[in-house]
């Protein structure tokens, strides 16, 4: 019975994942696309939970669906109403080529994984209940992966500085704005 319930939840989450991913790339309004991505991240978090990655699932919901997507929605609101469809304008062979490339990529991934790991995928390792818990992940970050942890902090710092640099107005822009405001 428990197994059946896990299957039901898994199928719902996977369908939500794929459906909302399709919705992201097919909505014309970027606001709806961003909302669909939040749904995608949420159902992905459910898949993470089922693969016993509790801490990553929590971080996914908090960091991605919370912080990153709010930033996205703010920028979309700042830019105002700009709609653009997946197939508007442009020669259709470009979009056809894009779809062919994406399908080729899918086939390639499936073939490579099937060839490389085909038989080994059925028997998972036995894991303890604490697998993927915050304490385990935290211990790994502060022992085995300390360097990666510190480098991540530097990457985030550089990105924050870059965001500020990109976001500040230059003096030339200010003067241009003033010149435009004057009759």
């Amino acid at each position, binding site marked *: 019975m*428990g*197994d059946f319930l896990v*299957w039901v939840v*898994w199928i719902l989450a*996977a369908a939500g994942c*794929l459906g909302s*991913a*399709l919705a*992201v*790339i097919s909505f014309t309004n*970027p606001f709806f*696309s*961003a909302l669909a991505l939040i749904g*995608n991240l949420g159902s*992905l978090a459910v*898949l993470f939970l089922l*693969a016993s*990655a509790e801490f*990553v699932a929590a*971080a996914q919901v908090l*960091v*991605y669906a919370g912080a*990153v997507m709010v930033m*996205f929605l703010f*920028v*979309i609101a*700042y*830019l105002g109403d700009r709609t*653009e469809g*997946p197939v508007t304008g*442009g020669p259709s062979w470009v*979009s056809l*080529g894009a779809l062919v*490339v*994406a399908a080729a990529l*899918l086939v390639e991934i*499936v073939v490579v994984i099937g060839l490389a790991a085909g038989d*080994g*995928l*059925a028997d*998972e*390792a036995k*894991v303890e209940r604490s*697998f*993927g818990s915050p304490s385990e*992940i935290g211990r*790994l*970050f502060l022992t*085995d*992966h300390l360097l*990666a942890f510190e480098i*991540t902090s530097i*990457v*985030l710092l550089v990105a924050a500085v*870059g*965001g500020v640099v*990109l*976001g500040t*107005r230059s003096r030339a*822009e200010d003067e241009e704005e003033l010149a435009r405001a004057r009759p």
Partner: protein
Amino acid sequence: MQGPDISWYLVVSAIMFAIGAAGVLLRRSPLIVLLSLEIMLNAANLSLIAFARLHGDQDGQVFALAVMAVAAAEVVVGLGLIVAIARRRLDLDVDRLRVLRG
């Protein structure tokens, strides 16, 4: 392990990655391209987590968290660029943005 085995997770991950790639190639609004990039990064994360579960090794989950941090950094810089482009009143269309000049 209850429920589907790892290959099902990998199938979902591969399809999601292909959808994201299709979005990056099809759409011309840089905002949607960024959103599609997020889908691709998350598909890779799903693979990492599935393989971590397969091998019973939590290093994959640590790597997935590092990917999330890099994705957050990428979003900050990407959105900063988009706002800068919009403020210079250029077209928000990746086909027309050809020069990296102000």
